Structure formats: C-alpha cells, structure tokens
C-alpha cells in the first residue's frame, strides 16, 4: 500500500480576517499525478505556498514525504521541485548559471549540475538562449526555465502552480509528456494546479477540489467521475457541481453590454 507524498491535517491559513485555507485535510498518494482544482481565490496557491515553505500556516500540520513543512523545511526542500505562481527567477543570471545555481544549492556536484543544466536546456529548447540573461526571456521561456530548475535535482515530489499558463501548444505537449514519464517511470508525485480542466482530466490520476479554503471533493479521477446509476460525468460537470453551478445569466444586469446600443 503506497504511502502519502503530501499530507495535511486541519491546515489553516488566515490573512487578517480572511481565511484562505480552512482546516484542509489532504492526502496525496505517492506516485500519483494529483490535480488540485478550485475557482479563483479558493486557496490553491496558498496551499502550495504553505507546502513549499513560502508561507507559514496559521494552524494545523502539513508534511511532505513524512517531513514536517515547518520544522523540517530543509529536508522537504531537498526532495521537492517547485514551479511557483509568479516564478522565482533571478533576472541577472543566464539560463545556464541559474540551473547551476539551483543544482549546486540542491547538493549536486558541480560537474553533475553543469551536465544536467545543459541537458535540461536542450530538452526544453532553451539551448540557444542558455547564455542570455533571464531578463531577456519571454514568459514561456521563463516558465520552461523554472520547470528545469524544479527538475534538475531529480525531486520526488513536484509542485506545479499553473505550469501551462502562457506556454504555447507545442511546449505544453512536450512538458505534458515529460511529466507523464516522470510519474509512470520514476514514480515522481506531481501536485498540480490548473484552471484548464481538460489538461487535468488528461493527466491526473487523482483530483482534489477546493472551494472557499475547504476541500469539497477528493479521490481518484475515476471515483469522482462516477455518477449515479453507472453514468460518467466530465470533470467540468463534477467541478461545477462541487464548486457551484453558473449563476444564471452571466450578462444579467449588463444590458448595455449584451444588447446593441450606443456606447457612452
């Protein structure tokens, strides 16, 4: 029976009077491709930020691979790779330097870090820009570099916050294949947030849905999609069901926008 790569118990995080994560209890099986879904402001990024050490929890516990994220944060960071929302790149380093920087901080020998940096840059189609400073990279290139940084030390858990946002279709396809290979062959656990349900449906083995800081659904994709009477729902139907259906006519009260007429 596999253990859990990520576990939280009554995890709570408040910002002043606002509760972003509310007594969240989560279990992500090792080797799973876990899709963490929720509407905007549901608490997805806050949860990832707590699990990766960017935020401190207000209360509750969280562990990654059995290590407490607060008291054993360095142990956690040695075993995870992260592509945070907003990225975490130093503009003045070149792509190669950035990967060597991350690789050596992660404990790789200099020669290994250098070799892997070159291979990752080639694999991500960044070879031609390897010697250019990150400040000159496009959004997609930055995303690929951030993903490379998260992979260079061969992590056991990957936290990816909207990894496909701003990346072209070809790169998305390549990264998707790479992630699938990591999960299938190397048994890496991927914890991914995305608003693109189609991507989650295609990639993930497990799904958790969060709304208002609380977990409203969790399980394997097949379990969650199973409807009454042996029917199968799409992930979108499930998501809308758990999070809340559309609030009627979206353009209600916006008559000036919906109908033809003079503008101000």
């Amino acid at each position, binding site marked *: 029976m596999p253990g859990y790569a990520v576990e939280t118990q009554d995890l709570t995080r408040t910002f002043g009077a606002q509760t972003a994560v509310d007594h969240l209890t989560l279990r992500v099986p090792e080797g799973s491709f876990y899709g963490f879904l929720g509407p905007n402001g549901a608490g997805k990024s806050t949860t990832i930020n707590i699990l990766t050490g*960017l*935020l401190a929890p207000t209360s509750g516990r969280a562990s990654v691979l059995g290590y407490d994220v607060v008291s054993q944060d360095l142990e956690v960071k040695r075993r995870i790779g992260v592509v945070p929302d907003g*990225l975490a790149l130093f503009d003045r*380093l070149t792509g190669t330097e950035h990967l060597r920087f*991350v690789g*050596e*901080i*992660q404990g790789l020998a200099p020669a290994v870090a250098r070799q892997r940096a070159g291979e990752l840059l080639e694999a991500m189609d960044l070879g031609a820009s390897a010697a250019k400073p990150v400040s*000159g990279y496009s959004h997609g290139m930055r995303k690929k570099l951030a993903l490379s940084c998260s992979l260079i030390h061969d992590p056991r858990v990957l936290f990816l916050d909207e990894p496909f946002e701003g990346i072209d279709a070809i790169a998305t396809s390549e990264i998707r294949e790479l992630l699938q290979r990591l999960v299938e062959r190397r048994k890496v656990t991927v914890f991914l947030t995305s608003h693109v349900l189609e991507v989650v449906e295609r990639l993930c083995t497990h799904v958790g849905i969060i709304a208002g800081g609380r977990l409203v659904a969790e399980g394997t994709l097949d379990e969650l999609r199973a409807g009454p009477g042996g029917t199968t729902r799409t992930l979108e139907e499930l998501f809308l069901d758990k999070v809340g259906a559309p609030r009627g006519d979206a353009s209600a009260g916006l008559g000036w926008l919906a109908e033809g007429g003079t503008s101000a």
Partner: protein
Amino acid sequence: MKTLRLLLWLRWKLFLRSTSTGNRIAGAAFTLLLLLAFSPVWFGGAMAAYAGVRHAGAAVIPIAFGVCQLAWLSMGILSGALGRSFDLDKFLRYPVRPRSVFAINVLASLLGPVPLMTLPTLVAVTIAAGQSAGFGAALGVGAAGACLLLVTAALLQVLLALLDEVLRRESARFAATVFMAVFFVGLQFGTRIATRYVAEHAVLRFAHHEITGQQAIALAGTFLGRIPTVAAPALAATGALAGAPLSALLGLLACAALLAASVLPGAALMRHTVRGGSDGGGSTRARSSRDRGAGSFAFGGGVLPRGAGVVLRYELLLTLRHPQRLMSLLVAPLVGVVFFFNGHGRANVGAAFVLVMLASSVSSASLLLFAYDGPGVRSFFLLPVAPRDVLLAKNLEQLIRLLAQFLLAFIALSFLTTGIWSPLLFTALLADVAIILCALAGGTAVSMRHPVRARRRGLTGRGGSSWEGAAISFGVFAAAAAVGALVWGVRRLAGPGWEDVAGLVVASVTLGVGAAIWWRSLDINAGVLVDCREKMIEALARTSED
C-alpha cells in the same frame, strides 16, 4: 482634464497605500532633515537674491533664476528618475495619452525637495521686487517665478525621458556608470580650477578697478540669460520689475511656448522608450564563455557552507552586472580623492572621508540587501539553503565590496600623497570596521522588515524609508563620533609615546565587540528572514512598479 484628474487621484492613492503611516512620517522627517541640512544653501541663496535685487535691480533676476534652474536640473539628473511619478508602460493598455502622463510627472515633480529648496530664493526675489517697484511688480515677478518652476520641471522631464531612452540598453547603463564617475571627478577638478582661475582673475581686475560689481553681475546675468529656459521667465520678471508690461507679457508667452514645446517631444520620447523595451542584458558572448567554466558555481571553496558559497557567487555576479551596485564601488574612492583635493592635499582629510563614506555606504547598501533579487527572492525560501547561509553570503558580499572600495580609495590616495599609512589610520580603520559590522547587522534586519525594490531603469534605486532605516543611516555617524571620542580620549590619557598603542588596543577591542555583534546577528536575523518571508515576497517579487 479628466485623465489628468484620474492620474492625480491614482498618484495620491498609490502614495497612501504603498507605505505605512509610520513610513510616511519617516519619509517626511527625512525630507525635513534634508531641507535643514541644506538650509545654508537655500537660505543663503534667498538672502543673496533679496540683497541683489534690492541693490542691483533687475540684472540679478537672470542669475537667481539661472542658479535655481541649474541646481534643480543637475540634482534631478544626477538622482536619475527620482523626479518622475509614473512610468508610461503602466498605462499602455489604457487609452491614456503619453502627454497626460508627462504632464502629471511635470506637476508632481514640483513637490520634490529640490524645487522646494528653490522656493525661498524665488519668494525673496518677489518680495524684493515688491519693495522696489510695488505690488504689481511683485505679482509679475511671482508669476515669472512660477513659470520658471514649470518650465524647469518640464525640461527636467524631457531630460529624464532622454536619459531613459539612452539608458534603455544595459550596455549604455554600464557606460553611463563610468561616465558619471569621470564626470563627477572632472566636475570637481574643473570647478576647482575654474573657480581658482576666475577668482584670481576677478580679484586682480577688481584690484585694478577694471571691473565693478555691477559689471560682474551684468556679465553673469548675460551668460545665464542666454539659456532660453532661463531667459523666458527672466524676461517676464525683469519686464514686470522695470514697468514694461509688454516685455512681461512676452516673457510669459515665451514660457507657455516652451512648456507646450516640451510636452510633445517629452511624451514622444517616453512612448518610444517604452515601446522599444529593454534588452536587460549585456554581452552574451562574454557570458557564454564564462558559462563554459569547469569549476563549481559556488564561491569560497570549502571554507563556506555550500549554500552560502553558491549564494555568494550569485551576489558577486549581480554586483558586476548591476550598474547601480557597480557604481557604488566608485563612490568612496571618488569621495576620498575629491576631499583630498578639497582638503588642500592633506592625506588624512581624504582618508577620514573615505572611512566615513565606507561606513555610510555599507549602512545604506545593507538596507537594500534584497532589493536586487526581484522575483528570485522566492528561491531563497524554496531551495534548501539555510537562512543563516543566505545572510552570511549577502553580508560577505557587502564586505568584499567594501574591501574593493577601500583598496581602490587608498591606492588612489597613496599615489597622490605619501605618509598616508600611519598608526592613526590603522586605529581608525579598525574602529571603522567595528562600526561597519554593527551597521551591517542592523541594516540587514531592516532590509527584511522593510523590503524595498531596486528600480529597473536609470541608475538610481527606488528607496524606501522607515524609522529603523533612518536610525541606521544616522546612527553610523553617531557611532563614528562616539568611537572617535573614545579613541581620542584614551590616546590623551595614555600620553606621549603610548598614544598609538592605546588607540590601537581600544580600536581592536571595539572591533572584537563589533564582530561578535555581527556574528550573533546572523542567527537572530536568520529568524527575521523566515518571519518576514511573506512581506519580502510581496514587496520584491511583484511585477508592478508601484
């Protein structure tokens, strides 16, 4: 007008919400201190302008106006984009005309400390004009003074836009760094030579009755009156003072024309710069060859923990690649050389100022310890590097930079004079390092509690202000005075023959205390780094400039 009103509203809201009340009070207190520190200049200027207009009449007006304008322009340009409120790139997606942004920047820059310092001179000229020629003249001269401020503000914005355009490429920013250094030294030498030559020449001519005071004023007035942006408001003021309404009106119209003429090219320059983007990098080829290096990325081979070594290498690369940090290396040496000359070639004057500048520059730089990391600051919290190692690396980089500045300054001073290396210098140096270590400890804490970002354009940074930051900045001078008094007292007590030894012992003990405080602070500040991570990410990693 609606856009202008909205932009003013936005500026006000951003001002209110971008800093805490405490920091706004600290900022106001800092501005007040700055105004007080420069009071001999602006108060003296006002007195001189008043006396000049009362005794020499309208001929003094172009001089007063010219000095005010040149002072504001030079300070504004030297401090980079300090006078600008908005960068145009924030408004590209909205239907806002560049000229509206330009106009707001012109108006907002009127409230800066330098234009405020020119106000007393302009008010003094107005009062003197009123006493000499009545209320109507005062009104005209006052209006001309207001026009001078507006024209100068517009001209400054055009020059800043031009500077932005020129400094768009990082290579140009590097060139500008060198240029500024050369310009600074050249200005000092040039001013000294010119002043000495002109003064000697003028004294001789005065002595031989070849030139009178009136003639000297007329000469300076003619010279400054040839600058169109001075000439137009000066024409309005002199016309009002001389009772020539047509001249006054012509001057005011010329000011309006200058204002209108500055808006279009200024706005066009801003638009061109924004659309041109920034290359953000230097020589790719040079970096490519460095990237192929076979060694470890980490610096400090085995002496430092691996994390600290890697971060130290990053910090050193950042210093070499960031014009602002590169420029900071030149400040103390330049100050040493300049004060050496200003101190009539006395080595100890240059050395003393270098030591004070080193302590002051470390205290200032330590307040911006994380300012250049941008979104990369998240990496310090995502990667398995101990907070203490991050701070150790960042502090060591500061000390390496300090050593480089010290060597540059004292090598330069050694070339200029002999006898600079004395026991007293070593005593002062030890005491200075003690103060520097304490400043570094305090500045590091403040840099995390009150994180500020560096600007991505021009040569200057976007600073922040806080009570703690101001205390560190001014505390360095207080500490220097206290340690200096202690060493002086002990040397006096020790008496002849033993004074050098006694001074060195006291300075060494002070250094030991300073080093212990700094070493202990690394542990304490490591906790602060963890506690302040959210605030730091919020302040440093966001993409918006405001």
